[in-house]
Structures are given as C-alpha cells and as structure tokens.
C-alpha cells in the first residue's frame, strides 16, 4: 500500500460532506487545516473517522482520538495504523 495522501482525504471529505453538513472547497484545504476551520466539530470528526476506518479497513485506537485536530493529524494516524495492519 502506497499510503494515503492529502488528496485522498479531501476526496473522502467530499464523499462525506453532506453527512458532515459542510461545504468543502479544495483550494482551501491543506494538511494544516483543522476540522474546526472546516466547520466540522468533534462529533463530525468522529463520523468522518468511522467512515475512513471502514473505507481503509483500519481501526484507530480510542487513545488516539483526542490527538486529532487537523487533516494532517488524521492522515498521520491513518497511515500509521494502515502500515502496521
């Protein structure tokens, strides 16, 4: 597996946009974008995380959830668990 990139994550955000009740503008989204910046609160972030867990067949541990604030954080956690899978 070549790893999950920021482009993949933004595409996933688009897929989930209506459920997360957000509008995603590609140009504005970077690894530094926080979920807060994107108008996604902590519960919306968990909805997104559950979607990603299913899509990439990974399981992110509970104790990692509180460390995720930005898309970059999410990407790092995802790639970490995908690598050890």
């Amino acid at each position: 597996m070549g790893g999950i990139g920021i482009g993949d994550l933004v595409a996933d955000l688009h897929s989930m946009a209506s459920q997360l009740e957000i509008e995603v503008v590609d140009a504005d989204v970077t690894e530094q974008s926080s979920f807060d910046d994107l108008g996604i609160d902590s519960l919306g972030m968990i909805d997104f995380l559950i979607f990603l867990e299913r899509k990439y067949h990974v399981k992110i541990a509970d104790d990692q959830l509180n460390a995720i604030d930005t898309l970059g954080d999410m990407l790092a956690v995802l790639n970490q668990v995908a690598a050890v899978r």
Partner: protein
Amino acid sequence: MPDAAVIDAIGHYIPAGRETNDELARVIDTSDEWIRTRTGIAARSRAAADEPTSALAATAGRAALARSMLARVDSVVVATTTPDMKCPATAPVVADALGLGEAGTFDVNSACTGFLAGLAAASGLIAAGHSASVLLIGAEKYSSIVDRHDRATAPIFADGAGAVVLRAGRPDEPGAIGQVVLGSDGALWKLTHVKSGGSKHPWQDGSDEHDPYIRMEGRATYRQATTRMVESCQLALKARSMSVEDVDFLVAHQANVRILKEVARELGIPEERAVVDLADIGNTAAASIPIALSRAWCNGTLRGGETLLLTAFGAGTSWGATVLRWPRLRMEGED
C-alpha cells in the same frame, strides 16, 4: 407457567427544575449554540434537593400503576446509576413509598443501558414464574454526580424517571417482551465512570485524588455508542427475522441528537422515524427510553400496534436492543 411478560401500563415523571444553556454558559466556557449543535439539548431537568432518585421513581411508578389493570405488583425493579444510597438498593424504598408491602425488590445498574437490562431481568422474572407482575422503573438523578464545571457532562445529563408495569401474557400479543440483545466491553470501563466511593477507591482511604463526579471521554464514547447501538439493533432485528422496513419507530437511549441521527442513518431508518425527545429534558440515562416511550404515548405518536426498535449504549461499556410491538394501553379511568 406464562410464556411472556407484557407491558400493561406506562408512566413517567420529570422534575420541574430546569437548567438552561444560557445558565450553563455562565458557569462553563460554552454557549447555547455550541451545546445545541452537539447535543440537541436546550435545557436539562434538575430534581430538587429533597427529591432523591427514589422519589422520582416512586412518582413515575405511581403514574404507571394508576393506569394498570393490576391492583398490585409482586416485584419492583429499579434501573439506576444514581441510587439513593450505596446500601440498601433503591427499589425497596420505592416499593415502600408505593405501599407495595413485601414485594420482591432489587436494583439493576447498567448505566444508560439500565432500562433494557432491567427489561430483560423483569421479563425473565415473569417468564420463569418468579413473579406474576413487575413494576420496572428507570430512574436517575444525574445532577448528583455531574460536575457543573465539566463541559463534557454538565450540558448532557439530567434527572427523571419512567416506569412500566409488566404482567404475564402471551408472546404473540402486543406489548410482549421478546429477546433483549445485551452486550458489554468491560475493557472500556474508563470511557465513562465515577471513580470514587466504591470498593476500589473508597472515601475512607484518605486519598488526595478522589473524584466524586462522572467523567466521560466524549469522542470515544460517541464512536462506541453509534457503532454498538447499530450492531445490537441489527442483531435484535435478525433474531425476529425482521428488517428496518418493519420498524415504525426507533426509540434509542436519548444520549444526544447527533447519536440518534447517526444511528438512524447507519441503520437506514428515515430520520423522522427516530424518536428524539431530549430538547427540554436532556439525557436521563436509564430513564430516557421509558420517558421517551411514555411521552410518545401521551402525545399520541404511539397508539398501539407500532413496531418499535429500542436500543441503548452506556457506561461499562454496555449496550442492548430489542424489538417491541407497542400495545394499546389504557389511560387513568378507562375500562
């Protein structure tokens, strides 16, 4: 021996006190909008200082008994996380307050899953022939274990009670309690817990690290709650050879509106068929399902014959679900 326990009557009691979002925002760093978007709660019910859990339970129990065809019940089961005292159980105090003499009594503690665990236990009492009738009450005074300065719990948890009278009947009649799917994952006990006052951290050990309040990991609890409620609902439907198309209403533990919407969405149940009843009362834990059922019956949403999918998730972690065909119940004074 009877085959099944059947719901004969229902009642609820919500104390008059309310703590609004604006009032909370004066105590903690939050706002009406922040709380509403995450929880769907505008105000949470607060019992008076002289209203312990037993008083809430007795008032709800009295309301249910007044509508029952039964003159009395053999057993009283109280599902609660917030008993009056560590000892004795709250159920005997409630039975005494209701004049139920020497009824068999015990409490069930499975936090927010308590009503469904209680339903399994109470229906088992009847099906196994230990009791001919049971008063089952979910009752909570969470204000007694909530830290008013904790943003993770203070906006959510509330006080109230809901009660059902169960009688012996046939498994095929409306109101019959079928299989209640129950599960738990004790490895996750830390997600929601009250540390002090039990045998692990007794008050008298003099520790400086005592914490009398309920603490909750919001993010992990939200994830576990949505996934476990969905899984248990699917198991409960499968056990009855039913699908979500057969369900008229999803009546989930009223944790917060986001969880209710997400569980409905995951199950494929339209949002309007998910009962949401917490805006003016908050999350009443083990009392939330019977309160939601009782209020839906009182306001005419439930008339009799509807197929309901009940589910809950709580501390433990614990969870459960069952399918229930709602019976036609009588109001006070009806023959």
